[in-house]
């Protein structure tokens, strides 16, 4: 039963996860050399360890076939996510393990194949879908080639990176990617997850998935520190960064601390000409799921006030990850006016290339 307030407009779901069934599905999109490599060497199973798909948390029971891999079916995504939430558009963020491959040429080949696969089997078949460009950020050169290759297709709205890569994402090694994205009006999506170049916490390897999952939020914060202090927002002022599946209730405390530290150490990074909190409010957005909600709606209202901007949250279901039950996509404490902004206005502003689609 759809318990959503039907007076709310259909929105833009900024995080859905079509899943690649396996390398078999990519073979048609690989060239002869890579087809042979993959087949002869038996290369498969590049699903990210950050999201083991048999875990119910990463595939809601009513959104998957029993024993099957959640997210592989377009029909289910249409029914469960698009129709289910009345969404006008949904942005696909495929999480197959391109970014964690060490052979950068292989990574680039898989990235290219992923983008061909998502175009042919998702975007071409469902006009309400948009997508992130999968890139092999291991090599900025390869990544920029792939961005240039896809930029002409307006259905690609974003370049996808993972939050736990080899270096924090403000690092200059990523700047050619940001330059290419900015040139083409693409946003940068930073999705939760690790390439496992480093332990999942700076204290080493926790025992449990639960801890790894919780630790995504610290990783996102480290990335924000990097983006701010390396000067990415100064260098690429038109670029928007979307933190995806990051949570957002940690944001006020983060901004207070970042502002305070910066004031005392400013001269180390003299190009940072505004407080970190200001830069983040202008350049960074967050998808709604997971909400990591406080106990009451009143607490959430206070938290939203502490964030200090209504522009930052973007509607998402995170389909098929299990972030809420039934249709309860909204946490308590969101007014209808805010919901409307989160559903339509904020995503439209976060993704310049969507504006055309929403004419």
């Amino acid at each position, binding site marked *: 039963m759809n318990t959503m307030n039907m007076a709310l407009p259909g929105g833009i779901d900024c995080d859905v996860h079509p899943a690649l069934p396996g390398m078999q599905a990519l073979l048609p999109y690989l060239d002869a050399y890579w087809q042979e490599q993959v087949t002869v060497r038996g290369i498969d199973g590049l699903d990210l360890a950050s999201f083991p798909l048999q875990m119910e948390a990463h595939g809601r029971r009513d959104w998957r076939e029993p024993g099957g891999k959640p997210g592989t079916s377009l029909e289910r995504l249409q029914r469960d996510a698009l129709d289910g939430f009345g969404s006008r558009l949904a942005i696909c963020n495929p999480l197959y393990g391109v970014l964690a491959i060490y052979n950068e040429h292989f990574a680039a080949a898989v990235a290219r194949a992923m983008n061909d696969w998502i175009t042919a089997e998702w975007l071409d078949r469902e006009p309400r879908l948009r997508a992130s460009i999968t890139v092999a950020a291991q090599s900025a050169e390869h990544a920029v080639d792939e961005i240039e290759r896809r930029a002409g297709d307006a259905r690609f709205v974003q370049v996808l990176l993972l939050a736990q890569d080899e270096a924090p994402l403000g690092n200059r090694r990523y700047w050619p990617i940001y330059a290419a994205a900015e040139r083409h009006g693409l946003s940068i999506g930073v999705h939760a997850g690790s390439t496992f170049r480093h332990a999942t916490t700076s204290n080493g390897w926790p025992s449990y998935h639960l801890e790894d999952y919780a630790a995504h939020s610290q990783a996102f914060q480290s990335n924000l520190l990097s983006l701010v202090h390396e000067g990415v927002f100064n260098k690429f002022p038109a670029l928007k960064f979307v933190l995806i599946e990051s949570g957002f209730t940690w944001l006020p405390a983060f*901004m207070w601390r970042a502002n305070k530290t910066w004031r005392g150490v400013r001269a180390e990074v*003299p190009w940072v*000409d505004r407080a970190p909190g200001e830069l983040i409010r202008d350049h960074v957005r967050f998808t709604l799921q997971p909400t990591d909600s406080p106990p009451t709606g009143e607490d959430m209202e206070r938290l939203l006030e502490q964030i*200090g901007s209504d522009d930052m949250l973007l509607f998402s279901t995170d389909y098929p990850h299990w972030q809420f039950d039934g249709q309860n996509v909204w946490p308590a404490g969101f007014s209808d006016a805010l919901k409307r902004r989160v559903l339509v206005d904020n995503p439209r502003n976060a993704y310049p290339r969507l504006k055309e689609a929403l004419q």
Partner: protein
Amino acid sequence: MARHIVAAAGEILPGGRKLVTIRGREIGIFNLGGEYFALLNRCPHQGAELCKGTLIGLATSREPGHFELTRRFEMLKCPWHGWEYDIRTGQSWCDPNDTKVRAYPVTVEHGATLVKGPFVAETFQVAVEQDYIVVEM
């Protein structure tokens, strides 16, 4: 307001400073290239002895990776939290205000200007009268 003699002319060398107490308040007198400035020895942030801070220049940048230092030794770095104050005006740098984005302009200027902070260290008028340096307070 009264005039208080704080030092003999020439006693505070260029680049130097002297701490004096006038009417129970500690004041730092600074000589910047022959000009004198006086600041209350109390940081508005958490009350540190501001005038004992390190003399620094003003680091600015037009873009990431570019570094420029001007106003050498004309800025004071508070000994505690390191906030930077312009000795000439008492103005702090770095806007600590978590102002809401609605009230803030969207365009970003590339590093040419620093955002002024709302804190201003208390300053006093200093004059050189014949053989003495005088503070009015």
